[in-house]
């Protein structure tokens, strides 16, 4: 008995769905990422207990040299000349939204005096809360 010769099947890799997968990945990136509005290089203190920062919060970044950058969360951060200007910055931000959150992104080696001054000015400007930005503390110390 003679078997019927099977028809030739051309070998190929199906790529029709590749665009769908790629666009799915794009959507995932759009949802899960935010454009960094502040890229001030600081060595953050470490903590075990950490909560998520709210999206669009204002950032006050202080480097170990005492340079201060601020952003309301909507625009790229810019430098301010002296510590006393934080009150007016906070007042402007809270004028638009009285419940706006603030993030202090300060270097761990700074003297507490500077943080105290920032928190005092935020308190005077009637900021509802502040988040002290930290890195994850690993078990067993640094």
């Amino acid at each position, binding site marked *: 008995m003679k078997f019927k010769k099977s028809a030739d099947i051309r070998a190929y890799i199906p*790529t*029709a769905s*590749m*665009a769908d997968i*790629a*666009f799915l*990945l*794009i959507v995932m*990136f*759009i949802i*899960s*990422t*935010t*454009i*960094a509005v502040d890229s001030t290089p600081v060595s953050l*203190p*470490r*903590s*075990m*207990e*950490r*909560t*998520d*920062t709210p*999206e669009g919060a204002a950032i006050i970044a202080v480097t170990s040299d005492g340079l201060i950058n601020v952003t309301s969360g909507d625009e790229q951060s810019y430098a301010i000349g002296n510590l006393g200007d934080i009150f007016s910055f906070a007042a402007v931000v809270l004028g638009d939204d009285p419940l706006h959150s603030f*993030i202090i992104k*300060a*270097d*761990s*080696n*700074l*003297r*507490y*005096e*500077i*943080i*105290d001054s920032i*928190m*005092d000015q*935020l*308190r005077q400007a*009637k*900021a*509802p*809360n*502040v*988040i*002290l*930005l*930290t890195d*994850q*503390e690993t078990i067993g110390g640094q």
Partner: protein
Amino acid sequence: MRLQRKKEEPEIPTCSMADIAFLLIVLFMITSTFAVSKGILFNLPKEAPATLARAEEAIYIHILEDGAILVDQKPMMIREIQEYVRNKVEINRTKPVIIHCEPNALYANMVDVFDELKQLEFDMYPENRDDDPTNDKHINIAIPSRKEIEAWSELLGGVSE
């Protein structure tokens, strides 16, 4: 004579769509960062002197310039703070805890102490871990500013010294 026309199938070329999509992915990966920034939340008091008025009832944590910690005037290691505060706060849940950090101490020292108290709060109020916003119990932590400490010292005759 009638010429026979070859019939062409209408189609949209989609071969390059995957290339464009992957190009966009790379662009997003380069220009953006993951939203993973985290920190310790501190609710700023609306009326600052309220906590200080009851300072003698509070647990008083004093961070010195060299990083040494005094809790109610007794020297203590950072790991001992949680147990000490827990024993006091479990008796009276509204008991304020005051963190007084010396101006020349490091910011990291203050964060370490604050972190210990926040960990204790996390242990004491496990219901806060649910996303229900009505579960919002806290240890009463106060971080007075230098101006408030000075005003308080004048009022009570140098307690912070």
